[in-house]
């Protein structure tokens, strides 16, 4: 069997209740940039961290990881590269 390695990016999807200003506040507190809402998904935001590794086989750890402990952060997911093919 082929061992498929996950590739983690320096982008995160975060669900935060309380609106854009609250998302902005939490993003800046942990060194993220709030890129904006994810499509039409309410309360889901695209966070970007410029000081973490762009592509890594390990998920990112550091002080920014404490963001998950924020009471208003309901869900967070570091984005993983998916292989997609044109048909």
């Amino acid at each position: 069997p082929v061992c498929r390695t996950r590739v983690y990016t320096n982008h995160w999807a975060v669900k935060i209740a309380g609106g854009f200003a609250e998302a902005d506040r939490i993003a800046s507190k942990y060194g993220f940039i709030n890129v904006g809402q994810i499509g039409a998904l309410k309360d889901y935001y695209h966070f970007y961290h410029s000081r973490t590794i762009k592509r890594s086989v390990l998920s990112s750890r550091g002080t920014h990881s404490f963001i998950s402990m924020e009471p208003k952060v309901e869900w967070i997911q570091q984005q993983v590269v998916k292989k997609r093919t044109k048909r």
Partner: protein
Amino acid sequence: DYDLSHAQSTYFNDPKWPSMWYMHCSDNTHPCQSDMNIEGAWKRGYTGKNIVVTILDDGIERTHPDLMQNYDALASCDVNGNDLDPMPRYDASNENKHGTRCAGEVAATANNSHCTVGIAFNAKIGGVRMLDGDVTDMVEAKSVSYNPQHVHIYSASWGPDDDGKTVDGPAPLTRQAFENGVRMGRRGLGSVFVWASGNGGRSKDHCSCDGYTNSIYTISISSTAESGKKPWYLEECSSTLATTYSSGESYDKKIITTDLRQRCTDNHTGTSASAPMAAGIIALALEANPFLTWRDVQHVIVRTSRAGHLNANDWKTNAAGFKVSHLYGFGLMDAEAMVMEAEKWTTVPQQHVCVESTDRQIKTIRPNSAVRSIYKASGCSDNPNHHVNYLEHVVVRITITHPRRGDLAIYLTSPSGTRSQLLANRLFDHSMEGFKNWEFMTIHCWGERAAGDWVLEVYDTPSQLRNFKTPGKLKEWSLVLYGTSVQPYSPTNEFPKVERFRYSRVEDPTDDYGAEDYAGPCDPECSEVGCDGPGPDHCSDCLHYYYKLKNNTRICVSSCPPGHFHADKKRCRKCAPNCESCFGSHGDQCLSCKYGYFLNEETSSCVTQCPDGSYEDIKKNVCGKCSENCKACTGFHNCTECKGGLSLQGSRCSITCEDGQFFNGHDCQPCHRFCATCAGAGADGCINCTEGYVMEEGRCVQSCSVSYYLDHSSEGGYKSCKRCDNSCLTCNGPGFKNCSSCPSGYLLDLGTCQMGAICRDATEESWAEGGFCALVKKNNLCQRKVLQQLCCKTCTFQG
């Protein structure tokens, strides 16, 4: 706008038009194969006007002469580059031509002398550039949920690798985006997602291992060659809904469309070419009836697609009378039939979901044998909100462990005896991961009854040497039935599905019925005056009623279709756009409303937002009145705002009591002595606490418990106890930086609790532990300055 209603056959000045074999018969040398009747839909006046399609791909060349006129910036963005311009990235190999090719199939401008003609040549076309970079769950979610109130149809011609060994599908965000799209997109009618079923034929891939095509929210489109033969790249599976033309063998014709660098190509191939073709046809149907919901679109496709000349040895007719195949779904799409069906379509009843949990007994799957599990389903007949009587999609959620996934084949047989293959053996799939809660989907039971015995069969056919010591196990499976509790088709929609016979141009060059020549029987809806053809549109006079189509064709009917009223003589006239039934053509003469609108019974109008004092009753599509004393509500008993002098107690309006009192349904009563304000009797009813008490977890206490801190910031100056951050044992304030003591194994450092072992021993090999600390202490190492930075801090805290 092109007036095609009287044209004998369509002519465009675009140079490639004569060669576009999948849209019209280009020569008279041989009879046309059963075609997709694109011209038929055009002749009825539908060209995609006011419909917005976007292509999720590697970008689209918005400056292409065939695309620029229909280009829609509001349906476009660049997810890869995080801006609004979907222009592709140019390179020497023209790697990013794919999206531009797909876009031209849908909406290339007609009659501009440049090159090619789109199927919906008056539709608006956009592009989301999202394949030219790292694709993540978030990139996909952003793309499928881009501007869902503006975009009607999303077309995607990509997916996980079709290598015959991948099992992959949408991750949580994208799944949510699909669900939101069908629930809220197009102002509640639902976004339409069209997907290419996959090109893995040569690798013996099976499209049920692709969670995008396998989803109930996507319309999965397969391909057939001009001859009706199976193309080499075709993947079979039970979730394919329908088919359009594409390339076949090397000698077969391919698809003509726009290409990168303002060029054109006659070399577009694969299922990539089929999905946009379907998107274009759906755009025509949506123009014919913009109120079709996402499920209506699927129903219309099911009812109008045709097996025709498509070559497969597994065509079968299910118990509802639909002919279906694992290669082609319900067959070749028929644009003219679709717009005709759309014109008179009545929205199908609400979707019900019935989850039938089968037994969880683990069953061993022995090599070269089958495991059979039978489940007697009721279709949730005991629950009116979930009762499924007539089936649409059927999903089998399954968990299997197996030493070689590719050796598995799975079948599902419905109570009516329709057998779907949910999975076929995959030669290259050596994975030992099995399936964990994977959802297989079949559309083969569409229209059948849900209740009865469902049979799941799992076959294990070892294809090569493998570890036989560990047999596979069927750990659990459940059946998710989607459909309706009542018959989905209204009497006006009910007609037997028949294979439409098409005249070839050689046999009948006018493609019309000559009045003088016709001597056959008239439609039953024609009066005794007679007819000039067999259809209800050929009557010289109608027996009951008639209505007119956009192209002035008169159709005889037994009663006025939905959205029409009986006006005068025998004529059915159209209701106002938002009305489903009416007694006049004005907006204030509605009797019932179309999906997404609510009847204001006081004004007989259909509105999207009900007035004050009423709520939107989604089941009945009416504005229901709120209960007395209620100013705004979400249901008769669910008040959200009260009239003056009253206050909201739960979901009802009551008399406002003074502070320190509550309303018990009859009069105001004093609160418990601990409460300053309350919502009910006893200490549990306190909202705020009186002097000397603080609120903690809904109760008034004299001081905060361990793991809580005193919060002075509460509204109205009332104090409350709030829970410390999870990392603290006790704390002085909120967050992880205000800890005053830590749980066992953690150390307090400037208000933050950190792991006990914050530094490593001298070799940096392991964490400092008790034994190591004892050694440090015994040898007075902490007194040596040089070692203090290494371990002493940890050791000091640990004593």
